[in-house]
């Protein structure tokens, strides 16, 4: 019996074009992604149904957690450097250029300004050890406003000088934190007429 020859079409598809596209996209996403910085104070933010994201720039974040410890951080290295310059003038503590540069790479900090030099001198992993940084003082001393008040003012001025924008303030509190410690921060903000700020929350996943 003669064999019937069936011509089979090849089932392989040329993957080159698809590969090109996918790697292009991959490159794009890798470059736009920002690496997550380690935070000196880990907080578990409460959940809400709000869908608005926090802005990326010109944002000062006040982190409250671990029984009322307050940490502060600003976005932007230039702004951080200028903020430190203003604070060093105000408290007459000199910082060298190297210290300023190291400070500008820190995401946030939570020490009284007298201890800031020691924290700057540490490396990243050491600095972010739990319980090392005691928090920024929030109580006013006599007639002088609290250190946190001064840091926020310095950050707002620095943002205005460099980016010519108003700094937005976000409060990132731990869900279990008692209200008085949050209230203290809100009062400091209101003391400098910042009446609008944001509360940082997670997305609520369960049915609420």
């Amino acid at each position, binding site marked *: 019996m003669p064999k019937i020859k069936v011509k089979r079409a090849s089932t*392989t598809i040329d*993957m*080159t074009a*698809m*590969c090109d596209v*996918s*790697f292009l*996209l*991959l490159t794009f*996403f*890798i470059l*736009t*992604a*920002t690496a*997550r910085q380690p935070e000196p104070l880990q907080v578990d*933010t*409460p*959940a*809400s*149904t*709000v*869908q*608005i*994201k*926090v*802005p990326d720039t010109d944002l000062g974040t006040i982190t*409250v957690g671990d029984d009322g410890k307050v940490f502060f951080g600003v976005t932007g290295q230039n702004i951080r450097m200028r903020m430190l310059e203003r604070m060093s003038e105000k408290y007459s503590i000199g910082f060298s250029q190297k210290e300023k540069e190291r400070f500008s790479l820190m995401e946030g900090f939570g020490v009284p300004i007298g201890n800031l030099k020691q924290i700057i001198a540490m490396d990243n992993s050491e600095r972010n050890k739990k319980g090392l940084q005691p928090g920024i003082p929030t109580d006013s001393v006599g007639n002088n406003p609290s250190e946190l008040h001064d840091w926020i003012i310095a950050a707002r001025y620095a943002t205005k000088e460099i980016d010519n924008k108003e700094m937005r303030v*976000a409060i*990132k*509190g*731990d*869900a*279990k*934190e*008692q*209200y*008085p410690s*949050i*209230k203290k921060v*809100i009062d400091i*903000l*209101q*003391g400098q*007429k910042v*009446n*609008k*700020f*944001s*509360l*940082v*929350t*997670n*997305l*609520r996943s369960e049915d*609420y």
Partner: protein
Amino acid sequence: MAELNTGGKAQPRVDLTPMVDLAFLLITFFMLTTTLAKPHAMDVAMPDKDKENKDDNLELADNRTMTVLLGANNKISYYMGQLEKPLEGPTTVDYGKNGIRPVLLKKLKDVQAATGKGLIVVLRPSDHSSYRNLVDIMDEMKITNVQQYMIGDISDPEVEQLKKDGIY
């Protein structure tokens, strides 16, 4: 010149399928981490604190005002009007869709029907309430679409009331 053709030798081809698989996996990962990792922000506008004219306060209509006291153990106490002569309450409820939400929705409707104006909610967190409570109740305002609400300081009689209800 004679062409060198050694017959049906196929061009060397590499199977790109696993590579594409991997690339797409990574794309998915980076896409999700960039958009999902960003925290959300709830905007708060506090009433301006005028230190010079402390008594420059606006009178609120009793029948439009609902005061919500945030107590300890995730409990809420609410009343309408003033604490000395409340129009309703104080009543203790829970958070969430079986607690404060039906109350708020009902009050919104009632006040709208009775006065033609919106409900005003005053939130007063006590010292024993947590930050989660504050965010929860503000979230509730967003969900029930209360247009006017504010965060105020709790007064001593209100603390007494919470103590009496056992949620301080």
